[in-house]
């Protein structure tokens, strides 16, 4: 059974879509949520092989890539899907191909040119990515056992969104990089895997807590905070409480909710 206590916020692993008029489909992270997004996209141009999507990964732990083999637009010839991320020594191409190894995965290998969509993989280096009027900036916000983790900032000259789904503030460089991404953002989506009470006993595991998310939001003058990357055991009620404890008129705080839509208003 689906545990009733997690029904409202949901338990699919991370995937967010950013919609912007006139822009290609933009997705951040490829957790299980990506499958259901893919199915929704099939009703649009992706069903007929005319879709264009850009998918950016924060890092390559399973919970952030495990939906990729089940993203059906990848199997439809004509679609163009560009994957971006940084995987250090391993390389994104190898990491994503390894996931498709036939010992693990029965899905046809869409990285093969003859199968499915046109799929490109880019290892993110230093330069921001420009897609039409959108600027996608990124920064390494620490590493875990040698695996880099990226945070993103998506802006269109008017509004800005910062996406920092997995971070632990172990040094000032990480803090600075995160602050730059979140600077003056209309919405900050931030890791809150541990509760404030749990965090002190879980240091070094690569995640942060709501208090740290709030500190970053305040320090960077972000306008709104969305707590994200919830612990699988966290109940709906516990999530309500986390957000309520931090919420204020100056800086609204909520917990990210599956299929929730958050609009950034023109300034």
């Amino acid at each position, binding site marked *: *059974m689906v545990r009733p206590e997690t029904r409202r916020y949901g338990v*699919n692993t991370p995937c967010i879509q950013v919609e912007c008029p006139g822009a290609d489909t933009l997705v951040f992270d490829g957790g299980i949520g990506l*499958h259901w997004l893919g199915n929704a996209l099939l009703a649009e141009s992706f069903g007929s092989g005319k879709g264009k999507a850009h998918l950016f990964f924060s890092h390559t*732990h*399973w919970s952030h890539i495990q939906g990729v083999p089940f993203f059906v637009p990848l199997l439809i010839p004509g679609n163009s899907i560009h994957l971006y991320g940084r995987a*250090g020594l391993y390389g994104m191409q190898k990491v994503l191909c390894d996931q498709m190894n*036939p010992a693990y995965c*029965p899905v046809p290998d869409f990285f093969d040119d003859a199968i499915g969509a046109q799929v490109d993989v880019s290892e993110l280096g230093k330069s921001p990515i420009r897609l039409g009027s959108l600027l996608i900036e990124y920064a390494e916000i620490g590493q*875990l056992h040698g695996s880099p983790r990226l945070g993103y900032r998506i802006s269109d000259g008017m509004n800005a969104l910062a996406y920092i789904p997995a971070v632990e503030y172990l040094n000032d460089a990480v803090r600075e990089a995160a602050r730059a991404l979140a600077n003056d953002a209309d919405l900050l989506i931030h890791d809150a895997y541990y509760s404030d009470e749990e965090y002190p006993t879980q240091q070094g595991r690569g995640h942060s807590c709501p208090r740290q998310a709030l500190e970053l939001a305040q320090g960077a003058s972000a306008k709104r905070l969305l707590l994200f990357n919830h612990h699988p055991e966290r109940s709906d009620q516990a999530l309500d409480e986390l957000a309520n404890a931090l919420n204020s008129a100056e800086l609204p705080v909520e917990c990210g909710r599956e299929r929730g839509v958050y609009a950034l208003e023109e300034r």
Partner: protein
Amino acid sequence: MLHLQHLIRICSARLSYVADDRLVIHMEITFWGVRGSFPVSSPHCARYGGNTPCIEVNAQDTCVIVDAGTGICSLGKRLVEQGQKEIHLLISHTHWDHIHGFPHFAPLCESDVTIHLYALANANASLKDILCGQQQEPFFPNALDSVNADLHFTDLSEGQRWNIGPIDVQCRRLNHASYTGGFRLESVGKTFSYLSDLDLYGPRLHGEGMNTGTEDEIEQKRIGLQQNALELARDADLMVFDSFFLTEEYKDDWGHSKMEDALRLGAESNARRIAFFHHAPGRSDDQLDELVAHYSTEVHRDADLIAATEGDQVVL
């Protein structure tokens, strides 16, 4: 049907007495994950459940787990609570949905626990290498070769038969991609058959190395694979079967069976109870209710038909 399921739920005690006062020991089957492909958390499957395959088999305090989908996460917590020190895990094959719960299996953190893992041998890599490949950077932060539990890996040969405590176990290859095995577990005169992930009657052969040789040789392999399924399921008290497809959805290149195939094998093998299993991610609770009701009228003789439900227990 409903009446029967109700009975199953209340008969959950491990030991019970029959009329002549002799102690009878049961085999207990608990479904921890029943969904195929990937875990689903939508309201459409709230009742039957969205976790990927994991079944617990208990006989005389011997704990055997079949498959390590996400259902194994909750089972793991319970095993740690109850202090289970010896755990046997049978893996049908190493597709993600059958192993991706394993890194989150709580007994891995216990230094006084021994976990025995078994899977049909893959010619390209050992079970140990495949599971270590899943559980290391850049995919997962805690490497499998540094966990506290003691792990023993066995790559099974085709048709291998061995004992786990009071349970006689048999593994045979099935028609599914890569190297996929089905299992037959027998104890105290009861039989549990696990056939998840196979295209039993489809036109294609899916396993690695299955499509080589002359037409005749390939035909022999097809017959052999169907025979394997039949042998595993023969006179089973419970047969769990890959029922991923509806008849009209069936695709011959996916390696999965249709619900009607479960009934056909059930009749051929004289299984007493059939459980639809490995439900497609989009299959709703209401659909499953209707399908069970529909196919119940077509089941052979006095056999029962159920759709496997997360959290339910069946006592053989």
